[in-house]
């Protein structure tokens, strides 16, 4: 319906009206946040950045002790080296993102020229390619290390995902990410919202599912199960596989639009990546 209705709605209201006035992302975000505040009244809002540990006190203590000697420290160091390493042309990632790469708060970002969502990981690879270097492989390894370094230097920045109101394609990308989040998929017929919203805080075999409010903040993570770092989209792939859905391509429109939506829902929380997870 949105595809048919949107042009009509925009036509009626005039182009100058911002998307937010048509039951748009801001209404979505407020209702989303309220849902979790009501469901977990004991969790201080700022604490939703900590995923499952924001609602599971039994696991929190152990997690806090892990965070004292963080398993992602090596990744930050590796990322720092990679970040400042010179490309063949003498430049480095620092020429794209500044001395310390503290730009986490700008991503995911709407790219008006190309009409697409650009995540920080994509931006890292595009910087490399623009300088004649091979892109890193997505999900883990070097991309996660560089992302860890940049996220570390960006800690405390506030999630502020922007959907420019003067580009209807940005709204479409957001809407498609939103639809994805609420749609049942895979042979097991689950939506992200089934597990991370309506069953958040409930057990699935050995795991309790975390609230989706805050899902965008703590990446990349060192996950004990992986025994290494991974990006947000790696996790999305894992959740899809767990419901027997064929995962999408890393950094393709499906995952990037979904990341756009998840990030918008987390607006107002602080970035606190990298982080440790079970």
């Amino acid at each position: 319906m949105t595809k048919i209705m949107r042009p009509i709605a925009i036509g009626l209201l005039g182009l100058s009206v911002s998307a937010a006035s048509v039951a748009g992302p801001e209404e979505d975000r407020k209702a989303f946040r309220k849902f979790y505040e009501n469901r977990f009244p004991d969790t201080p809002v700022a604490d939703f950045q900590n995923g499952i540990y924001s609602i599971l006190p039994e696991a929190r203590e152990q997690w806090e002790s892990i965070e004292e000697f963080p398993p992602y420290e090596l990744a930050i160091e590796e990322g720092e080296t990679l970040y400042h390493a010179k490309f063949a042309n003498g430049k480095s990632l620092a020429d794209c993102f500044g001395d310390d790469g503290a730009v986490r708060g700008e991503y995911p970002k709407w790219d008006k020229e190309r009409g697409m969502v650009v995540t920080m990981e994509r931006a890292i690879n595009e910087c490399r390619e623009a300088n004649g270097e091979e892109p890193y492989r997505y999900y883990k390894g070097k991309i996660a290390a560089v992302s860890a370094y940049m996220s570390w230097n960006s800690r405390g920045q506030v999630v502020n995902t922007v959907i420019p109101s003067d580009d209807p394609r940005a709204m479409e990308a957001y809407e498609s990410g939103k639809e994805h989040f609420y749609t049942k998929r895979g042979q097991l017929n689950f939506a992200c919202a089934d597990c991370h919203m309506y069953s958040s805080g409930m057990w699935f075999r050995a795991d309790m599912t975390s609230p989706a409010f805050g899902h965008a903040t703590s990446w990349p993570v060192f996950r004990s199960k992986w025994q290494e770092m991974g990006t947000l989209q790696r996790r999305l792939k894992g959740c899809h596989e767990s419901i027997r859905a064929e995962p999408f391509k890393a950094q393709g429109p499906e995952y990037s639009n979904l990341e756009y939506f998840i990030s918008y829902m987390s607006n107002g929380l602080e970035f606190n990546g990298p982080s440790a997870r079970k």
Partner: protein
Amino acid sequence: MMFKVKQWALLSLLVAPVAMAADPADLVAEAENAYQTVASETGYQWLTTTRALKAARQALADGQSDEAIKQAQFALDLVEATKLQAEIEKKAWQARVPK
């Protein structure tokens, strides 16, 4: 008229077993095709289907026709279910958005 219908029914009964014993390679190709079509039309793909198709191709390569047919048929059934899911979800997701 009545006679004609009966004749047709009989004829189809005789023909049916022949049609069932399709070439396994054709059936696998049909399943592959159905899988790609539902993916491009709806964006939905099940991992289970991917795996069944892989098993079907493998069985075909190993000369195990019965297994190839079984897996390809399974994949086709899964594709039907995937289509149904996509059809239902076209609207159903909206009811899950908190207001």
